[in-house]
């Protein structure tokens, strides 16, 4: 008996030696922190979680030695709830990277948490350009879009077509103020004038009072520095109060495809705005959308630019982790991301700058008229393409402490 045991022990210890011939197993955990039930839920929410799972699946197919798991939670648009979840995830649950986080207020808080714990934050959901500006960190990569790109794309295009006086409806938190600040700067730089603004509480349902003030300002353009449910309500009620009939136009500064679907083409037609992705843009996007739709398994939903950003950003992060060999050192992974060029079927080629800003081409879209739409989900027509190096704020203008010189 003792001899058998001894032989077995010898055989087992020899077998361990052969493990060195395999590739080292890398474990990565991604947490999708999103808005599951409130005004941004249709633009992110469950759709974002699915996008992250698709990225994990696609990556693991090509890299069998990497094991990626995805968890998710609802931040309810509250910075304290988001921060608690992030702390729990980073400290206790071994999450290496947090993705999505729509709501710039929450995102700015998460960015600080990630830096403090040397983990990674792939900010594919929030808009505030401060994430790569004055509040940049070495652990945050800002994917998909930001307020400067929106202001520069939409604002410049509208001023150039004659919309030179503006009145802003501003969502009263970090995002709204950043968007208003960046757009006002673009308007004034291109010869326009800002006639006034009004701060509206987030997740407001009745805009009639604020729209009346916008009407009385006699501005040609009413800039909507809000998003999701707030934008939908502003435009719907604006149509009711005869704003567009009276000659004023809405500028949707942040509009997602699900918002347009919720408004309906009759109300939303003619809206012009900038996005970095649309489901019907190219074959790669269409194929991805078909897959996403099957997993989403709910009628009438279309993916938004943010969900595509979760997929693309997560994939890029995982590629950097594989190149570094481990997900443990957040700063090392982000530094690696800043040296790589990524290519995926949704955004094409993307690079990450020194301040954490990911660069993608931007597209100016206009919402189709109802008679121009040929099939369900056929919402946009492409008006212009802005190349990646022009679409985002120049590196030196951001005020990011990471940028030398």
């Amino acid at each position, binding site marked *: 008996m003792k001899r058998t045991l001894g032989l077995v022990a010898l055989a087992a210890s020899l077998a361990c030696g052969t493990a060195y011939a395999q590739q080292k197993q890398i474990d990565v955990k991604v947490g999708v922190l999103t808005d599951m039930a409130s005004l941004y*839920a249709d633009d992110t929410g469950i759709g974002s979680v699915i996008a992250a799972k698709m990225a994990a699946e696609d990556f693991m197919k090509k890299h069998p030695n990497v094991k990626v798991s995805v968890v998710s939670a609802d931040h309810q648009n509250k910075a304290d709830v988001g921060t608690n979840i992030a702390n729990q995830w980073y400290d206790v649950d071994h999450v290496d990277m947090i993705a999505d986080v729509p709501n710039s207020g929450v995102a700015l808080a998460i960015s600080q948490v990630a830096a403090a714990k040397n983990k990674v934050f792939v900010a594919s959901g929030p808009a505030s350009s401060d994430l790569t500006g004055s509040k940049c960190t070495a652990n945050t990569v800002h994917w998909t879009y930001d307020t400067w790109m929106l202001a520069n794309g939409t604002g410049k295009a509208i001023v150039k077509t004659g919309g030179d006086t503006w009145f802003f409806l501003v969502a009263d938190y970090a995002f709204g103020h950043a968007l208003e600040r960046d757009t006002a700067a673009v308007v004034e730089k291109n010869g326009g004038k800002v006639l006034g603004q009004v701060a*509206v509480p987030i997740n407001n349902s009745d805009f009639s009072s604020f729209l009346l003030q916008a009407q009385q300002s006699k501005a040609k353009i009413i800039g909507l520095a809000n998003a999701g449910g707030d934008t939908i309500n502003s435009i*719907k009620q604006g149509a*009711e109060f005869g704003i567009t009939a009276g000659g004023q136009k809405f500028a949707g500064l942040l509009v997602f495809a*699900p*918002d347009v679907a919720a408004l309906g083409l009759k109300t939303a037609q003619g809206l012009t705005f900038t996005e970095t992705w649309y489901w019907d843009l190219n074959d790669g996007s269409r194929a991805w959308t078909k897959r996403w739709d099957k997993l989403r398994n709910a009628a009438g939903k279309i993916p938004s630019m943010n969900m595509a950003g979760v997929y693309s950003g997560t994939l890029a992060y995982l590629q950097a982790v594989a190149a570094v060999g481990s997900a443990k050192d957040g700063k090392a992974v982000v530094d690696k991301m800043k040296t790589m060029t990524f290519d995926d079927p949704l955004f094409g080629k993307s690079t990450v700058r020194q301040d954490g800003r990911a660069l993608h081409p931007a597209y100016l879209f206009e919402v189709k008229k109802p008679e121009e739409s040929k099939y369900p989900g056929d919402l946009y027509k492409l008006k212009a393409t802005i190349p990646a190096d022009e679409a985002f704020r120049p590196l030196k203008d951001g005020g990011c402490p990471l940028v030398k010189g």
Partner: protein
Amino acid sequence: MPLTPTLSPQAGRGRRKPAMTTIFGVPTMALFGQLLIGLINGSFYALLSLGLAVIFGMLNIINFAHGAQYMLGAVTAYLLLNYAGLGYWPALILAPLIVGVFGILIERLFLQWLYRLDHLYGLLLTFGLALIFEGIGRNYLGSAGVPYTLPDSLQGGHNLGFMFLPNYRAWVIAASLVICFGTWFAIERTRLGAYLRAATENPTLVRAFGINVPRMITLTYGFGVALAAFAGVMAAPIYNVSPNMGSELIIVVFAVVVIGGMGSILGSILSGFGLGVVEGLTKVFYPEASNTVIFVVMAIVLLVRPAGLFGRRI
């Protein structure tokens, strides 16, 4: 010396514009527009707080599901339009009936066991029901909600000079005034209302007179729920039909009911309209506070008159 109106810069430049008077820096005409909008919002507050006050006053149940029932009214109108082809006007009658019957079911199945218990049980039960309805709604409709078009007969509006008043919003004010004062009249001035009020005070004695008290209470709950659903159908064309529409409104409506006095019908109607106007004015002068001004008013009222402005019991 009487107040001299401040003239707008254009007045002296040969342009034919009338002199604008301003109150605290806001043009008077603009102010009237905001007051009118405040009245419109106040109509919704009044309708909803009336339903709540009726239910609390008659049944002693704090109906936290009121916001969800308002949402169900809007959703029923949406479903009637998309699956039964019935437009706004039939929905205005059918949706409250359907949701009212549903409310009666809730009352018979759950609420009737709680009347003699502490208020908290009713609150907890109805709160739980609200969460369930909202969750189901969110599952099928998504959080952004679904569109519901304005009925053709009420499209467009009139330019009143100081603002453009959509016809639909004028209809909202008119309809809620009629319904609110109709309900008040029915409860305070008719015999049926007298039976109802008596049954609340002393159900045993009223039963001794041969009046079917449990049925009256059930129907009263159904009526309160129907009022909420009616407000929901009226809200559907202007606010998005979304599962969250009730929860956004319900807290404010509770504040309105508390200000008016928990058991007072007239109090809830007048507070509803009044607070809509107060909120409207806040949106002009200090919009950042527009979400919280009603609660500030509630705190002040509770300090000065704990029973509410028109309340009779503490």
